[in-house]
């Protein structure tokens, strides 16, 4: 009798695991298919018309939305308790940081308006030499972290007279001290980690830009 109960329990466990694997497999297939659709044929989500601005411009974010949706679907179908717990933790994080994110985005908009464009182009030109590297990294750090916003701006500077070294320095530094990144540091870690990250990542961006400058590569 005891053996029958043990066999029945292990059979139920196996059936449960098999069900999880099948659901997981279907979710992974769905994720891959929809991610491919948003990254290639429907890149930019033009079929949504004017509503697509609410999902952002970055196809990588669209793919992440697909992953998030299927991930929660998997959690709901396999472990409702874990899905509820996850949603609860996420909701508390969002509630606690909403004002912080709004503040960060307001700072980002104002910071960019304070820097005149012609001054930036002169600072990053070939004639500026190694100073363009330091200037490029410094300017890049306060630019938005989203590349679909920043990269066209940096490309415009490159086409408008900024040198290759200054342009690459901006690329290396882009978004490091963007208000949203700093707010994420504070939300998930603390101000000490934030300060350390800022110093080390700025240093790494500078090292990358200087290595490129002294390598002599110029496109």
């Amino acid at each position, binding site marked *: 009798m005891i053996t029958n109960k043990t066999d029945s329990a292990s059979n139920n466990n196996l059936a449960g695991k098999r069900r999880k694997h099948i659901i997981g497999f279907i979710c992974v297939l769905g994720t891959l298919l929809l991610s491919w659709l948003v*990254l290639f044929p429907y890149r930019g989500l033009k079929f949504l018309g004017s509503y697509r*601005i609410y*999902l*952002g411009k970055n196809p*990588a*974010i669209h793919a*992440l939305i697909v992953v*998030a949706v299927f991930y*929660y679907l998997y*959690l709901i179908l396999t472990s409702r308790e*874990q*899905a509820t717990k*996850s*949603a609860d*933790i*996420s909701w508390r*994080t969002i*509630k*606690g940081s*909403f*004002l*912080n994110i*709004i*503040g*960060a*985005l*307001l*700072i980002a*908009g*104002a910071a*960019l*308006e304070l820097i005149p464009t012609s001054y930036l182009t002169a600072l990053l030109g070939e004639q500026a030499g190694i100073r363009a590297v330091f200037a490029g990294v410094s300017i890049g750090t306060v630019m938005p*972290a989203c590349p679909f*916003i920043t*990269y*066209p701006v*940096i*490309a415009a500077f490159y086409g408008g007279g900024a040198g290759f070294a200054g342009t*690459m320095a901006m690329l*290396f530094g882009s978004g*490091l001290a963007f208000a*949203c*990144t700093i*707010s994420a540091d*504070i*939300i*998930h*870690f603390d101000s000490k980690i*934030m300060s350390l*990250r800022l110093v*080390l*990542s700025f240093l*790494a*961006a500078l*090292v*990358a*830009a200087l*290595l*490129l400058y002294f390598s002599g590569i110029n*496109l």
Partner: protein
Amino acid sequence: MKLLKKWEQSFMLFIAAGLYLFLLVFYPARAHAALERSFHEMENLLLPITLAMFFGGSINLVIKNNVSCKFFQGKRSILSAGITGSIFPPCPFISYPLIKGFHNGGVKLPVIMTMIIATTLVEITQVFAGLAVFGTKIVALRIGFAFTATMIVGFMFNFLYYRLPARKVTVSSNGSAEDQ
């Protein structure tokens, strides 16, 4: 006021208020342009950030930190951290909960910092944006030099973290801690 319990969050809002006050007084046209730019960014970023936070908040529960933390111990920990951070989503609201999970799982600070630096600097997943705007050569140069620099800074920080003499703290007879 519960929303503003961390002093750093209040600080961010005060900076925003101060910046806009400055712009309104001295450069009112720029204040208007700044507000427009900010609202444009909010339109583009708020929903993706919210969804990213939903994803990030849950993934930490699922990943078994005691298994994954084994990759970030020993001699190759900095290299593993650099590679892992490079392929993490660059959005900090997704990657930071993961990294925090490793930190809570006992991974040391130099490894965590290397991972964070790689996440914010290398950003391999942003290759689509780079290819669309700059082309293959610039993207390859950006990723190559960014990863190299991340490794240099990561190893340097690891060396300083373990090699710098630790402060010795003694407890005096009246119970207070004193640095030596």
